[in-house]
């Protein structure tokens, strides 16, 4: 650790460069670090909108019948919630914000391969986000189709599906550009000496993710375009009245959207693989196994989409085969978990906030993933498909998994980004409340699902009242925790204690430069001689 926080050798990247100052110097900058932060702030903004919608839904469900909104409003709320959370929060989430910031640092590069395209993708992101929100303002309001936009309902309804779908299309394009950029960067910009197997695991996970973004996203892009054409020109691709097949829409949608769930979770796994060795002070156990399992998840993940359609009337063969492949995907996820836990063995564990998040990721993701097996099995999925069991499953994976890892990533790289540090104690208190609230919110949903409460239900039968009420209370606790965490982070940015350059004693390259890094990242491009995580 070098004591150099006081005198900087180079100005921080946060200083304006180019001809503009203030906010303009940010939104015209092609520096990956500034773009990463632009992403982080815009993602956080949309995320808060999504959370408020989530809380509103839970409030509505506190009792049967109408509580605070009408049925139609509820349907629009969960659609907007889903669209925001999926396309604006969790898919760009870790890669575009944290990934953008740290990827070049981690591989010892000055920037990504295509800095201008990087900035373009942020603009597309904002455009897509504004389009999605604009549906609130005109016509019959936001789409009411669910984030899946299933035909033919999405073609019949009078709400602003066209615009919502176009928003998703633009966002998909933004995601593709990020993917192209990361793939090229990882291939071409690694610093001297960093062979593939000397690359840290977070870049590896971004690499696998980028492949999914590049090869799967266009499918949903074209599918959504077909919906637009079908709605605006009255041309029926999926309209049974002219012989089209609504099930084909579902196939095309899930061909993208299942791989997309691994876009959501692989970077989170990368973050966890980064955090654990630092706080355990050990070389990560099974480095190669973790790399290979990540690639395996990405690859096999392409061929399991049918498990969302077990009750759609797909052929029986397809149901069985898709169920089979679904089970195979669980194995590499397990391999990662085993290796993380094994890393802790004989380590010297320092339970700082980032590690707390990493470990709670493991716990919550296990619950999410293992319940994924219940829905992956045919007989049980026939029963719990489209019930709140599924809702609980994906909240556990997406937000118990990716969400917690995201928070972990923010807490881990915070001192690198800002050169300051937040209060540890408040961070842990916020986490604890979040954790309790989270479980209270979603575990009742598992039970209700097994008892047969369908999802996307505005109103429910009286037997589900108690569990719904419990779940609503959980949502308030969780919101409290989230508030404390945000408050602590914002306070850290404004008046946190200065942090040294390498506050966690990390071995990866980003910790070997100043905090915050300078415009050029490194004074001289580093040369790597040993594997990462050599403690």
């Amino acid at each position: 650790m070098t004591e150099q926080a006081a005198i900087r050798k180079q100005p921080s990247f946060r200083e304006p460069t180019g001809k503009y100052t203030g906010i303009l110097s940010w939104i015209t900058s092609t520096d990956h670090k500034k773009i990463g932060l632009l992403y982080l702030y815009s993602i956080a903004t949309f995320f808060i909108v999504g959370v408020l919608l989530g809380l509103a839904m839970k409030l509505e469900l506190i009792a049967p019948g109408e509580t605070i909104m009408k049925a139609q409003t509820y349907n629009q709320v969960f659609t907007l919630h889903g669209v925001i959370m999926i396309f604006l929060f969790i898919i760009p989430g870790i890669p575009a914000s944290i990934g953008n910031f740290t990827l070049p640092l981690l591989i010892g590069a000055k920037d990504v391969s295509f800095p201008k395209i990087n900035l373009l993708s942020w603009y597309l992101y904002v455009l897509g986000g504004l389009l999605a929100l604009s549906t609130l303002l005109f016509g019959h309001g936001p789409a009411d189709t669910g984030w899946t936009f299933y035909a033919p309902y999405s073609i019949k309804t009078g709400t602003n599906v066209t615009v919502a779908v176009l928003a998703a299309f633009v966002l998909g394009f933004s995601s593709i550009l990020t993917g192209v950029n990361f793939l090229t960067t990882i291939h071409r910009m690694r610093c001297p000496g960093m062979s593939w197997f000397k690359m840290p695991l977070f870049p590896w996970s971004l690499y696998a993710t980028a492949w999914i973004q590049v090869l799967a996203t266009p499918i949903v892009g074209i599918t959504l375009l077909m919906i637009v054409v079908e709605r605006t020109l009255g041309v029926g691709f999926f309209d049974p009245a002219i012989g089209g097949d609504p099930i084909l829409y579902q196939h095309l949608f899930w061909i993208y959207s299942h791989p997309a769930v691994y876009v959501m979770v692989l970077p989170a796994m990368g973050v966890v693989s980064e955090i654990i060795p630092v706080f355990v002070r050990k070389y990560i156990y099974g480095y190669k196994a973790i790399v290979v399992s990540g690639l395996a998840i990405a690859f096999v993940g392409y061929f399991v989409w049918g498990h969302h359609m077990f009750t759609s009337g797909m052929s029986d063969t397809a149901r069985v085969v898709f169920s089979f492949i679904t089970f195979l995907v669980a194995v590499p996820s397990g391999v990662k978990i085993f290796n993380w836990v094994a890393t802790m063995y004989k380590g010297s564990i320092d339970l700082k906030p980032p590690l707390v998040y990493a470990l709670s990721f493991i716990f919550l993701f296990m619950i999410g993933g293992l319940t994924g097996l219940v829905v992956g099995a045919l007989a049980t999925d026939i029963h719990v498909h489209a019930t709140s069991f599924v809702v609980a499953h994906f909240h556990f994976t997406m937000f118990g998994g990716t969400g917690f890892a995201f928070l972990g990533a923010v807490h881990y790289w915070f001192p690198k980004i800002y050169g300051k540090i937040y209060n540890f104690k408040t961070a842990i208190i916020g986490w604890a409340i979040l954790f309790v609230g989270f479980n209270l919110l979603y575990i009742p949903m598992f039970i209700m699902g097994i008892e047969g409460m369908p999802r996307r239900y505005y109103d429910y039968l009286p037997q589900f009242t108690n569990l719904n009420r419990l779940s609503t209370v959980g949502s308030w606790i969780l919101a409290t925790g989230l508030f404390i965490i945000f408050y602590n982070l914002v306070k850290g940015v404004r008046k946190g204690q200065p942090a040294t350059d390498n506050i966690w004693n990390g071995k990866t390259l980003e910790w070997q430069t100043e905090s915050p890094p300078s415009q050029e990242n490194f004074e001289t491009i580093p040369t790597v001689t040993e594997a990462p995580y050599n403690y």
Partner: protein
Amino acid sequence: MEEEKRHIVGLDKNTLIWIDLLILTFVTISVAQFNFRSVTVIIALLIASTKSYLVITNFMHLKFESRMLKLMVGIAGVIFILILIALFLDYSAR
């Protein structure tokens, strides 16, 4: 371009490929005049694939690119074909 020695494809080679492509176009049109049932589709697709192969390797210079890039093109192709097969798990067994 210090570090790269780029292969230059000559006029004759390009022309040769072009003529091949025209011939294949002619072949595919003539074959389509006969009805061999589903075989026709396969022949048409085989010819189209051959044409693409010629374009990709020669006109697009994939031949002279790194092994890594060839591998990437291969992976993208394989994933698409596997998706097509998986989709037909449903449609061919309905």
